């Protein structure tokens, strides 16, 4: 870290230990978030608008699900209120996607096209980290909060209080789901190094993620196979929600963690591969 005592003097080669590097990343991370917060706090009225908007869209989503349950008690083994728990998880993940992933990594295709990626790569900080948190739409936390509120309300309706273990399992699998979504976005967006002309890569994600509004078991078995092997993001809502309603087995949870780790590693590899062949688009 450059502070006043050390001036602008560059650290000698080898003096930055692993720990120093981590601390520097931590500082950069905090600074980026503070910057986003400062930017957003200029528009305080947006805060209330965000909550109103989030509540409205959530009600629409509940209404959508309720239409199917007008005609049946259970869909794929899930009752209406169990599906509502899942919908809350979906809403919270949407908040993460819209608040962090889309404004952050989602801006990669634009950065490449406009040449501003070059400036970003010159910064003395890991470009992936910078890109991820360069802009965070903090008000989207409204989606996370209303989503969790819906899950809690639905659990209350089910007369179910998850045990400490189940809540822990939920938190772990929820973070794993976030990691999977992050890895999928990083991979998709890295594709824009190869296909600069494709403007709407995130549309692929949006289209497929829509299917995660419903439990994976609600789909016909042929579709479920597609979801399991081709489009695993559909499971990102089913697994954490299963933890809350008490039907998640340890082996599935472990599998979820394994997939999360694999997604992160693969996406990082794709990103580095893409960067290595990047020759700058000018700007």
């Amino acid at each position: 870290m450059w502070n006043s005592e050390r001036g602008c003097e560059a650290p000698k080669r080898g003096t930055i230990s692993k720990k120093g590097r981590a601390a520097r990343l931590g500082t950069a991370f905090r600074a980026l978030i503070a910057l986003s917060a400062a930017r957003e706090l200029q528009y305080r009225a947006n805060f209330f608008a965000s909550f109103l908007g989030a509540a409205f869209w959530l009600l629409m989503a509940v209404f959508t699900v309720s239409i199917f349950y007008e005609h049946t008690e259970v869909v794929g083994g899930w009752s209406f209120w169990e599906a509502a728990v899942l919908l809350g998880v979906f809403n919270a993940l949407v908040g993460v996607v819209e608040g962090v992933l889309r404004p952050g990594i989602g801006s990669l295709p634009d950065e490449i096209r406009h040449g501003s990626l070059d400036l970003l790569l010159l910064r003395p900080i890991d470009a992936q980290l910078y890109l991820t948190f360069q802009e965070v739409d903090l008000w989207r936390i409204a989606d996370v909060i209303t989503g969790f509120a819906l899950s809690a309300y639905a659990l209350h309706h089910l007369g179910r209080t998850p045990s400490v273990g189940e809540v822990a399992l939920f938190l772990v699998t929820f973070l794993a789901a976030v990691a999977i979504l992050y890895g999928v976005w990083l991979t998709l967006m890295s594709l824009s190094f190869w296909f600069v002309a494709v403007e709407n890569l995130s549309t692929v994600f949006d289209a497929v993620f829509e299917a995660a509004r419903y439990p994976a078991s609600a789909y016909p078995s042929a579709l479920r196979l597609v979801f399991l092997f081709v489009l695993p993001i559909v499971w990102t809502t089913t697994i954490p929600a299963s933890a809350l309603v008490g039907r998640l087995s340890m082996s599935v949870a472990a599998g979820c963690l394994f997939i999360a780790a694999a997604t992160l590693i693969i996406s990082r590899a794709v990103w580095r591969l893409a960067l290595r062949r990047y020759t700058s688009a000018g700007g």
Partner: protein
Amino acid sequence: MTAVAVWSKRYGAFIRSAWMVDIQYRADIALWLLWGITEPAIALGIWWTVAGGGDVDGYTRVSFARYFFGVTLINQLTQAWDAWYIDHWIAEGEMNHRLLRPIAPVHEAIADNIAYKARVGTIVIIVWLLTAAVWPIVRLPVAPERWVLAAVAVVLGAGIRFFNGFAVGLLAFWTTRASDIIELQMAIGVFLSGQLAPLDLLPHWVASVASALWFPYAIAFPVSLLTGTGGWEHHIVQGFVGQLAWLIAWWLLYRFIWRNGRKEYGAVGG
């Protein structure tokens, strides 16, 4: 030259240029199409499970499959993205050079729609035919008279959605949130136009709200004519009367907004 010849020449030029632009962005079109296919596919997947071996208020798996294949096609053929374009034109100052042309921007937009729909419509029909080759239940019972009526209904439905989108997009002359309004309308339209479920499976109050608005005339009605399922296939006269009424209503609204909006316009940027 007669007026017809002049206009067909103009439209020919617009359609060709729209086609050229589309070809540059063909990957984008494939992505939008993917989005247009997943939504009905998800709805069909859930109804398929709910119906099981029996039926839901008379809808079996077969009728759901036909209905939602129809929704996919008709939605693409009537979909209009113009509201977003107009919002963008006005916000970015791209409306200016369009206003200077001796031909109203609405004609460019109509030609764009014809080019886009010819392309995506063909793709969806090919996908449908290929699916039908291996999956007999999505083959439609032959009904040529009804299909002719369906073709007419598609044109009218596309007209409703076009002028609806164009009029709402033009609200950008006054507000910077025109695209929010169209997005809200689109979200409500998913229920009211029958994209999530055939209208008679919705709660009664929703179905009656829907039939008082233009949404079902743009999608549910043509889908019912095409597939013979969806609830509107027995209300052909009512369907066409509703279509004409809403088409005229949105066309008049579009003209009203267009005339007054231009006076409001200050030509931002360039």
